[in-house]
């Protein structure tokens, strides 16, 4: 419950936030469009564009297919075995790739699946002639499956665990075989979440930048995002970058519309330690297929992370920690992260309150627009991927060479926008909660306006603010997309430093750096999660 004055203030703040986001998106797009007008498409370039677009869609499609083909049986196996030792940890492990900086994961994958990695040694022993290649299409697919298989499992598993226990008892009583049960009960239950997981995975893979940059990148394995980066950074061909950006935006727009058409967005449900008992599932030898599947899944996801730790620990960490460049990069990363997180939380808070003020059933068109746009602001940033945003600003700043403050501000802005949907998802329920609980009381006591913000609403939402903030810092800390265009001798962040070490084959340094970066982001993610759960228990 808000007073009239508070409504006015909330809506004004929301409008301001929307305008800021709108500008941040519109300026680069306008720059891209005006640049685009002055460059024509030659037929030669046309072939190139078509090839890149086709590859982008193809690798995203294959990545999605592979992720789902393994995620569905794995989720099923996990649902069938609700209480083996370590199940909780395995499911926690499956949440890690979501927060892991792609660059760190790429390093772990190279350790395991690279030419000299464990996997190829094993394949060699088994008599494989040609080693698996971590670079090119196969590497990109592997990395995408590494990130998205666990995500898909976490999205699909709750659909099975939500089914009433009587289903499994009835299935056991009637004697439904595994196949019949899958066809008639499990698959119908998984279908919806599998479809939305597929949509989300496709979107993530179609806009994936870092993994493709590190593992692909050659002319035969380049996606739109990486091609934009290459056009600007290496060839300085703004015309091509503009065309690629426009293709990228239309592609994500189409994918998003299709996803919207397909139905509800994927939402991770409750995946706690134990599921429901499964009297329909037999033990003994029947255990074997499930055990093998779960074991392989755990190994596939866990091995690259373990490899990061092992190779990182064997690097010369003490030398790395005394390197002035490392501390400079850490300082820059942290400053960018904190600024981006602050901006993101501020924007999200304004949008959330404006949305609340406009109400669930807005009474007028402008209010409806305000509510709708405030909600959509998060996903708008998905529409225009960081590299595209960066490309626009890059052109506006004339390449950003020799400048310091402007590129830094752009990076902060892009990182803040990237974190926005996540931060909003944390703040929205907390805000709803505090207003429902304290709203009437505050108004009846006359604690309104500025006083209410400082005395009631902000303190009550502090845990949520902290969660969103820490999460945004972690996200920014691991991001290579925004810095890639602007990184230079003067602007060095941790991911940028890691990328350069990788590029110059300083493998040991890269391993140590990856461990440090991975550890910092993981620690922040854990803090954010802890704050989040404490937040939940305080609210109750």
């Amino acid at each position, binding site marked *: 419950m808000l007073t009239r004055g508070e409504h006015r203030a909330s809506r004004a703040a929301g409008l301001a936030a929307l305008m800021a986001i709108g500008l941040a998106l519109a300026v680069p797009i306008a720059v891209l469009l005006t640049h685009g007008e002055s460059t024509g498409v030659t037929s030669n370039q046309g072939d190139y564009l078509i090839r890149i677009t086709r590859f982008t869609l193809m690798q995203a499609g294959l990545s999605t297919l592979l992720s789902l083909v393994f995620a569905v049986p794995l989720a099923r196996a996990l649902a069938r075995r609700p209480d083996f030792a370590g199940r909780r940890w395995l499911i926690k492990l499956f949440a890690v790739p979501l927060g892991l900086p792609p660059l760190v994961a790429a390093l772990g994958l190279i350790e395991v699946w690279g030419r000299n990695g464990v996997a190829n040694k094993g394949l060699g022993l088994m008599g494989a002639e040609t080693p698996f290649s971590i670079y090119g299409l196969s590497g990109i697919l592997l990395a995408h499956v590494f990130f998205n298989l666990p995500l898909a499992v976490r999205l699909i598993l709750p659909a099975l665990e939500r089914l*009433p*226990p*009587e*289903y499994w*008892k*009835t*299935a*056991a*009583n*009637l*004697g*439904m*075989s595994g*196949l*019949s049960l899958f066809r*008639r*009960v499990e698959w*119908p*239950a998984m279908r919806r979440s599998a479809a939305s997981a597929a949509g989300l995975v496709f979107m993530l893979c179609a806009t994936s930048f870092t993994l493709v940059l590190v593992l692909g990148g050659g002319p035969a394995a380049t996606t739109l995002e990486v091609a934009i980066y290459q056009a600007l950074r290496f060839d300085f061909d703004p015309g091509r970058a503009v065309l690629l950006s426009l293709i990228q935006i239309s592609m994500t727009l189409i994918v998003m519309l299709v996803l919207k058409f397909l139905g509800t967005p994927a939402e991770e449900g409750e995946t706690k330690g134990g599921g429901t*008992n499964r*009297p*329909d599932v*037999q033990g003994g030898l029947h255990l074997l297929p499930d055990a093998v599947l779960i074991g392989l899944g755990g190994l596939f996801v866990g091995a690259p992370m373990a490899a990061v730790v092992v190779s990182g620990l064997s690097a010369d960490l003490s030398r790395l920690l005394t390197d002035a460049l490392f501390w400079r990069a850490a300082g820059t990363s942290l400053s960018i992260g904190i600024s981006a997180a602050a901006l993101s939380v501020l924007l999200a808070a304004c949008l959330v309150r404006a949305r609340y003020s406009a109400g669930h059933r807005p009474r007028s068109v402008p209010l409806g627009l305000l509510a709708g746009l405030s909600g959509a602001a998060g996903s708008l940033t998905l529409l225009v991927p960081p590299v595209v945003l960066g490309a626009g600003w890059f052109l506006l700043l004339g390449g950003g060479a020799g400048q310091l403050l402007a590129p830094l501000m752009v990076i902060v802005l892009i990182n803040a926008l990237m974190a926005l949907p996540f931060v909003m998802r944390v703040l929205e329920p907390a805000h709803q909660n505090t207003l429902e609980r304290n709203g009437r009381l505050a108004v009846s006591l006359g604690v309104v306006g500025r006083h209410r913000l400082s005395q009631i609403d902000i303190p009550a939402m502090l845990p949520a603010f902290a969660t969103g903030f820490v999460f945004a810092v972690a996200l920014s800390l691991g991001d290579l997309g925004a810095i890639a265009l602007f990184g230079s001798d003067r602007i060095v962040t941790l991911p940028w430093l890691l990328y350069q070490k990788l590029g110059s084959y300083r493998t040991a340094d890269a391993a140590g750096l990856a461990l440090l970066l991975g550890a910092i982001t993981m620690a922040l993610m854990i803090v954010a999660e802890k704050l989040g759960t404490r937040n939940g228990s305080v609210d109750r």
Partner: protein
Amino acid sequence: MRQHRAIAFDGVAYGMGELSAAFDFRRQSGTVTAILGPSGAGKSTLLNLAAGFLTPASGRIILDGRDVTGLAPSERGISMVFQDNNLFAHLDIRTNIGLGLDPALKLDRAAWTQVDKALERVGLAGFGKRMPATLSGGERQRVALARAFARRRPLLLLDEPFDGLGPGLAADMLGLMLEIRAEVGATVLMVTHDPDEARAASDQILFIAKGRIAADAPADGFFERRDLPDLQAYLGSGPV
């Protein structure tokens, strides 16, 4: 039907410590037994042991003359009706019953006729193509009874199936259940917490307290007994 043992629990033990349960009883074929007791006493444990959802630590379970202790639920010759979620919500009524005849749903024309007959029997003719969500709670339970009717298994296990239906509807359903039982010739174990239901439907009582059978007696006059403190506590302070 010849009178023989339909059910025997021979020194069946399950679980350990506080939550342990131990059951030993037998029933003649064609009888209806009401299982009563405070919540958490182990009524459902007993039913789940009979159904094969739980495996006893020791002892034997004999159903219809066969030792079924090591058999899977589907091999025991039982039908089961729960309080809720008896039907797969995304499958239509005919499919839900059809799965009871063949778990892979490979049914010939005669089998589908059987499905329709079962629906007719419970007064739901023509409901076959409807989805469970479009039926009332009572109608859904009748479909579950129809499935049990179509399956014609010698043992029928009921886990508070008429709970939450309201007294009138519950009485109707109980009547229907008894008719179906008589037609199939099944032996019934029925968990309930309603003494009236037990009085109306059953000829024997198993009273469970703290994981043990506190009383195994005919239903006639059972609720008037004064020698069972657990029963007194369960029924509440009656006339002293």
